[in-house]
């Protein structure tokens, strides 16, 4: 199995970057860890970025097309080639979910173009946050597929590498001199040991499995949503940091006669999400909107698409101003009958 020393990662990524952008988790000036291009600063290997790489494949705001004054329509999907480095398992599984969303009923050309031009290099997770629950969902902390390359931080200064696709294989071959070999048996043992040690680090204070079962069977008490609605300030931040939130709205802007149609991330906690032109809203009560969010992710996605609409990344709790999110939902779901 291939192994790369930490000091060789940047030269490797720079060589991959000759004909494409390379994005990785990098701290910005305010101390927030975000996916940025590697020339912006040193790569951070130890923490999960605040916002997943969803924002690269499915930007917060994206121009779909322009209508010129003579009626000509110009639509240009983004064909930039990119390497996305350091994706955590939960976020890689979220990309699988997003792939399904953007191809299920019709193929979304804009997403498809970005997606097929992206090389996904994941990093197995060795330090889960206290709100992570990928271990229950089977979406992490390590992947056995759905990556081009997966790195395992088996020692302080080096990573073992698993190959998940031909594109991944070529990305190694191009800089062959930067890699070393570790015998497969030894490498597997190291990975298994790392995985076992990581699984011990997950918080066990909440029974996520039971919460998920109750949600799948539609056995969540309405009181759960009432209680949650008291604690939630409806800022919408959870949908912003969620790697599987795919709802968007489409708007048009006109400037100097040119019409631009854009799409922007949407948020199911807002009243306007389903408010009708008449003013009627099928989800007028805030608690009903909260129910919609959790039912969508935990009840209807499993039923309709055989995937849970949550990959257990824990961000909706960590970044919430009242520290609720999926964590609090599971806590309430398993304690309120």
């Amino acid at each position, binding site marked *: 199995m291939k192994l790369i020393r930490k000091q060789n990662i940047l030269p490797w990524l720079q060589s991959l970057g000759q004909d494409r952008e390379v994005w990785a988790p990098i701290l910005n000036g305010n101390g927030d860890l975000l996916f940025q291009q590697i020339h912006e600063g040193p790569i951070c290997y130890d923490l999960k970025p605040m916002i997943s790489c969803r924002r690269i494949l499915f930007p917060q705001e994206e121009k779909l097309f322009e209508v010129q004054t003579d009626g000509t329509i110009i639509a240009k999907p983004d064909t930039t080639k990119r390497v996305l480095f350091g994706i955590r398992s939960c976020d890689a599984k979220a990309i699988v979910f997003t792939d399904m969303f953007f191809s299920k009923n019709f193929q979304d050309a804009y997403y498809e173009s970005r997606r097929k031009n992206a090389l996904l290099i994941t990093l197995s997770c060795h330090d889960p946050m206290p709100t992570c629950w990928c271990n229950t969902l089977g979406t992490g902390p390590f992947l056995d597929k759905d990556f081009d390359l997966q790195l395992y931080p088996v020692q302080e200064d080096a990573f073992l590498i698993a190959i998940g696709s031909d594109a991944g294989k070529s990305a190694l071959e191009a800089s062959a001199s930067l890699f070393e070999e570790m015998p497969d048996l030894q490498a597997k043992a190291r990975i298994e040991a790392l995985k076992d040690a990581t699984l011990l680090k997950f918080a066990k204070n909440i029974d996520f499995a039971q919460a998920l079962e109750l949600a799948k069977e539609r056995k969540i008490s309405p009181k759960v949503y009432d209680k949650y609605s*008291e*604690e939630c*300030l*409806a800022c919408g931040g959870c949908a912003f940091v969620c790697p599987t939130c795919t709802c968007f709205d489409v*708007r048009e802007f006109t400037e100097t006669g040119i019409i631009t149609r854009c799409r922007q991330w949407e948020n199911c906690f807002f009243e306007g999400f389903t408010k009708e032109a008449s003013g009627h809203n099928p989800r007028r009560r805030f608690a009903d909107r909260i129910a919609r969010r959790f039912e969508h992710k935990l009840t209807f996605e499993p039923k309709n698409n055989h995937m849970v609409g949550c990959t257990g990344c824990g961000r909706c709790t960590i970044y919430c101003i*009242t520290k609720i999110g999926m964590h609090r939902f599971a806590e309430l779901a398993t304690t309120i009958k």
Partner: protein
Amino acid sequence: MAGLVATFGSGAMTNSINEFQNAECIFVIGSNTTEQHPEIGARIIEAAKKGAKIIVCDARSIRLVKYAAVHIKQRNGTDIALLNGIMNVIIQEDLYDKQFVAERTENFDALKTLVAKYTPEYVSKITGVPADDIIKAARIYATHKKSMIAYAMGITQHICGVDNVKTVANLAMLTGHVGMESTGVNPLRGQNNVQGACDMGGLPNVFTGYQKVTDEPVCQKFEKAWGVTGIPRKVGKTVTDMLAMAHKGELKALYIMGENPMMSDPDTKHVEDALKHLELLIVQDIFPNETTALAHVVLPGCTFAEKDGTFSNTERRVSRVRKAIEPIGESRQDWQIICDLAQRLGYPMKYSSWADILREINELTPSYAGITPERLETGFGIQWPCPNKDHPGTPYLHKGKFTKGLGTFVPCEHIEPNEVPDAEYPLTLTTGRVYWHYHTGSMTRRTNLLERECNQNFVEIHPDTAKSLNVRNGETVIVETRRGSIEIPTKITDEIVPGLIFVPFHFTEAKVNLLTNPAHDPVGKIPEYKVCAARIRKKG
């Protein structure tokens, strides 16, 4: 400001935002905290979940009521009576902090004498609050060690706003809830930089850092630094005064920056008349608004995203704002506009950047001396007072000693609102804000998502009041006061008490400030936005 200066010697939030989550008791009066200060509201909820006792004093059933050990629905404009009643109980039941009162304060006897008549039964008659609730709130507040008070415009926007604040401060001193972590008197400021505007002398009586314009050595210090002589030693005028003078023709020219008095000041008709009397009205703002429409000259300022500098937030924290994009169109940073104007008027203001200005502030302002541009480049800002470059800043004030030495009890009597309901105008109108919009709406009403959440004004009415008026939910009605009338849809809700109606002030289509009473506090000059007499008529 004036109320806390008189009692403590310093007019700002005494403690810090993060301290709310560790409080044992939080007394919220005149603040819809989760809607208007969600970061603080979130911490109050966190504290409540950890077992803190929450006391909410508000005639509306705001969200925090769900966490409240006591919900006091005092009649609007009776806060002094309520707080005096609470102090009466604390003294009667011997729950006050005798050591603190003896060592750290003065004038206790006057307070004791004054509040003696404010028995729970007497207060109950004035406020409409059951005596038991007053007793309960008093016991909870006094018997916890870490008790914090938070208030906002519900306390200040009254003809007795300054006395309201003094009374809040009296309560905190009585129980020794000042000068420690997770205690204090915490006025929550409504804007990102309104604390900064006050700190920088945006008041008629002070230079930066509350150095008085009547203080000769202070004036000389500024004259020397600015290379001028003859800085006026007289206290200037407040907005309320200026508009009155403009109306009388005594004020000829007015330069307004970042304010929209045609939406935000009471009795809009009077404001309009006053502004139209001016020979010159200059308005500097980021968007055209109701006030720029009357201006002879509009100077386009730029938004937060287009400027460099600092903001000073509600917890006295000075932090950097960094320019993300270049100013759009002809807009410019406010300080550059002011410098150019000064130059044209014959005084060269030679600053080359925001950092230059902050360095001058460091030199001339003791409480900001250590908040240098270099220190603000990293971290999350510094809380004043910060007297030198090695000082870490001050998370809470009045530790061991009040800014003015001894804290002074300033006992105050209850004052009835300027205009109370009568046969002609039987309802009480109060005004405020909604979660989705900010102030006069210059920014938020241009934001499509916020506008989608809330795009029209409403008047909140209790079902009983609605029934007696024979109006339905969503029906457009006419709300009238002695100053004017607006057409507005109803929102019938039991989250408000009968007889009280509530209208937000963000909406130009139904400007509630056409209705509000310009009567104001004699010292603070803040108008009584929170109480006036009104009536509702069916349309047509």
